[in-house]
């Protein structure tokens, strides 16, 4: 699709943790916003655009105004992006488009959430999922991803052992990331297969660990980006596709809406899979990485199982995947979890990935996935401007 000349110039993160006692979501947003703007070498006065996410529980409505007031911002463009795990990626190309359209010049994109394991925020739904899925015991996300995995296994012969390579190899990557919740906790294929069967064929270690935390990045025009602190990371292409909410209404199971979104992002950037130096792939479940590898053309449709068994996805391999360990090793700080895939790509492409730098990384694919392979965003980022 379109390719506005924008770049990510600053990033900030509060590392995911199992619980976040004593802090509010707004406090986390303030913290992480200040670090992202400081990282860019900018100040509060430079920010005239703001993008936030939904906050179930704390601020159900008027989120952009609530956050703007809390941060002391008076943006000329304020918006909310509600694409689940794709919200961060959705923010980046919306920010670029808003800058391109003259709505603002520099956008702060921020997501965060607290977590108390004793409190499960449940939205009072009155929608088709509540009416036609919940009465059968189909609540939450696990069941839908399990059914995608089951379909992939039935159609292509993919095995649980093959899917287990995703958490196993990402945990190994996280040995270089002290901020990961599971830093230093390597696991084996057997550990995954012997962890409780949450919903067949997915085991507990195939599933992301819910956490609290926050993430933010700053986007500005390519022209302004030259005056910032770090090497700017340019948005070279983006694509988005939203097809369903309930899995029963998905057009298909083993190819996700990421396929057209990634194709659009490649086309805009003028790249193909073989041009990529790094994959920063959304990974709430092992099966999501498997399907994404196929939808990105890294391997053929149906062949992600054998591919995952063979692949070296470390920073020393030919095509590193999630050097930070991904959300499966880092923990998922609610919607901020998806944003960490942008942050990791930015660090790698500008050369600030301390202790886990992919040598010479220039071009990365970042994916975001929301609901149940429902709302998908793909980004091609590059250290070089278009």
């Amino acid at each position: 699709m379109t390719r506005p000349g924008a770049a990510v110039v600053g990033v900030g993160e509060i590392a995911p943790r199992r619980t976040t006692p004593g802090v509010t979501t707004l406090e986390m947003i303030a913290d992480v916003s200040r670090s992202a703007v400081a990282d860019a070498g900018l100040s509060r006065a430079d920010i005239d655009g703001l993008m936030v996410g939904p906050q179930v529980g704390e601020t159900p409505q008027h989120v952009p105004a609530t956050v703007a007031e809390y941060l002391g911002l008076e943006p000329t463009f304020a918006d909310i992006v509600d694409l689940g795990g794709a919200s961060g990626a959705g923010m980046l190309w919306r920010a670029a488009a808003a800058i391109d359209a003259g709505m603002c010049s520099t956008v702060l994109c921020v997501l965060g959430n607290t977590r108390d394991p004793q409190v499960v925020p449940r939205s009072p739904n009155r929608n088709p999922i509540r009416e036609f899925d919940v009465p059968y015991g189909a609540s939450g996300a696990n069941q839908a991803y399990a059914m995608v995995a089951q379909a992939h296994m039935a159609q292509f012969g993919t095995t649980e052992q093959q899917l287990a390579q995703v958490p196993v190899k990402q945990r190994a990557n996280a040995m270089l990331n002290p901020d990961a919740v599971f830093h230093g906790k390597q696991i084996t294929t057997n550990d995954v297969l012997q962890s409780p069967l949450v919903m067949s064929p997915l085991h507990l270690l195939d599933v992301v660990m819910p956490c609290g935390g926050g993430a933010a990045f700053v986007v500005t025009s390519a022209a302004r980006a030259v005056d910032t602190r770090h090497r700017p990371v340019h948005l070279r292409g983006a694509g988005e596709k939203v097809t369903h909410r309930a899995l029963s209404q998905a057009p298909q199971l083993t190819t996700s809406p990421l396929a057209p979104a990634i194709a659009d992002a490649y086309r805009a950037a003028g790249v193909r899979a073989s041009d990529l130096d790094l994959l920063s792939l959304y990974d709430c479940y092992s099966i999501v990485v498997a399907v994404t590898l196929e939808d990105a053309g890294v391997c053929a449709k149906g062949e992600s199982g054998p591919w995952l068994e063979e692949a070296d996805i470390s920073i020393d391999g030919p095509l590193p995947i999630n050097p930070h360990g991904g959300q499966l090793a880092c923990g998922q700080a609610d919607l901020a979890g998806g944003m960490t895939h942008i942050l990791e790509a930015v660090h790698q492409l500008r050369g600030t990935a301390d202790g886990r730098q992919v040598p010479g990384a220039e071009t990365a694919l970042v994916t975001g996935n929301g609901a149940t392979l429902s709302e998908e965003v793909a980004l091609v980022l590059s250290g070089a401007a278009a």
Partner: protein
Amino acid sequence: MTAETTATMPKPRITSTERTSAFWEAASQGTLLLQRCGQCNHMQHYARPMCVACWSPNVSWEAAAGTGVIWTFTVVGMPGHPAWRPDTPYVLAIVELDEGPRLMTNIVDCRPDDIAVGQRVVLRPTLQPDTNQTILTFALASNE
């Protein structure tokens, strides 16, 4: 995985709307209703004020045959809602009806190990004791 109370929590009641109440009334009589478009013949589940294929408002109820295949499934070990904990392991499936539409359901009266993608199934509604409401569950055709 959350630390919720393990007390026996009742299953939530079905939340029908004015438009969908006919669907659940038919369900209580053991019938699965779909919508057929009078303009383009498209069949859909669930009920909406228009056809999702051509946006014609000319949609009407039509009883499904109650037969189809398992599009995909999972055997639930750790349910997302605590009210289903006593039911584990149970089979959650998406059935593709012979008319085309798909729906979330349970495969009942089966051994979970016997379930596979592509198996033929037939409608076998279940009266839920918790809610005294009928849900549209299926059984393996081979068990009929």
